[in-house]
């Protein structure tokens, strides 16, 4: 029920709606919870839940997640080296 699917804004329809590309499937999405279409750009990644965009996924925050995983791998490798594995 709380599932939310990431998609990419492909077209602004009007002040509170946009078309979102979910990997080739296009759907109309409501933008009220992000402050309307004036706050959105074509190409933005959004999380969509029951027809509403609820969050913009920014490149910066996505990069932070990726970095957290990279750091984890690096930390594990360092530990492995210390342990002589």
């Amino acid at each position: 029920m709380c599932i939310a699917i990431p998609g990419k804004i492909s077209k602004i329809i009007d002040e509170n709606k946009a078309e979102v590309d979910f990997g080739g499937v296009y759907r109309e999405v409501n933008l009220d919870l992000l402050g309307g279409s004036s706050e959105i750009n074509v190409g933005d990644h959004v999380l969509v839940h029951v027809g509403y965009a609820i969050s913009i996924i920014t490149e910066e925050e996505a990069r932070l997640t990726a970095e957290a995983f990279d750091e984890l791998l690096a930390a594990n490798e360092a530990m492995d080296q210390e342990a002589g594995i």
Partner: protein
Amino acid sequence: MTKTDPFVKNPVEVQKKLIESIAAYPKPARIMHICGTHERTIAKYGIRSLLPDRIEVLSGPGCPVCVTPDDDIDAAILLAKKGLTVVTFGDMLRVPGTEESLFDARAEGADVRMVYSIDDAVKLAEENPEKEIVFFSIGFETTIPTTAAAVRRGLPSNFSIYTSLKLTPPAINLLVQDINVDAFIAPGHVAVITGTVPYEEFAEKGYPIAVAGFESYDILLGIKMLLDQMEAGTSNVENAYMRAVKTEGNPIAIKMMNDVFDIVDVEWRGLGIIPESGYRLKEKYQENDAAVKFKKIYEDDLNKLREIRSKKKKNCICATILTGKATPADCPMFDKACKPTNPIGPCMVSDEGMCHSWYKYCRD
């Protein structure tokens, strides 16, 4: 592994390292998640089987369909049987009430429809001005703002809402008094709306918290963060889902909920009435509140159903499963009398119910 996040490189390698790191934690740990979508990922990828037995992952009351009490389901069925058009999310149709489900009522001729979004229900009301449309609105903080947004835009006069809306922090508050848990994985998409702030109170009480996303590596990262905190003897709110969750959440959605709803005591299946754990429409929106507008139509019949319900013995242990005190394996009806095609309780109906997930992914 599902289609991975385009931003996460080497997910397989990441998961391998996470599992190794988690397995190195030497002590027992009881970690609870409170999200049906987390349970689905955990069951689907067999995450419990990848962890040492001493690290337990419990499932809490995280499926909104499952925690919707009989009383609300019965009220929605009665509204449909009295000639109103009841519209709701697909999963709600098959949840059994005291005597039948919305789906059964539809088979008997009642007008019951399912929609993907509340906007589809509003459209139905606009296109059918001669019909009275009741939207049976269920859900947690992730879903509630969509109802708030629709109310704020203004609703047609033939459209009303029966609310069965739940807030997650009060349920956690109750759980920590009742069961033995060391740490919590907080629900990622609830936190997209609420932010991480509502979980601070549990960290202050000594429970490590990690907000996690829904890929298998997101959940493993959340578990690792919790174990690291336990090892260090700290309890903080950490964010393992930074690409979607911000500390402050979604302020527009929070404001809309506050504008439209009052916080009230509501009943949860399995947990009873929890103080200040739900929403109902503010008085200024009463003309769109189905529980006010149509109360006289269904009240007497609902009282009769309550009486029947109080005398009826249910063998379903859904209520115990929802509080992490049992698993579907403890239920004598699981995969026997109770299957997704013939669900006895809501945990088998919803795609996010623990019984449904276990039926799909965890049978021998």
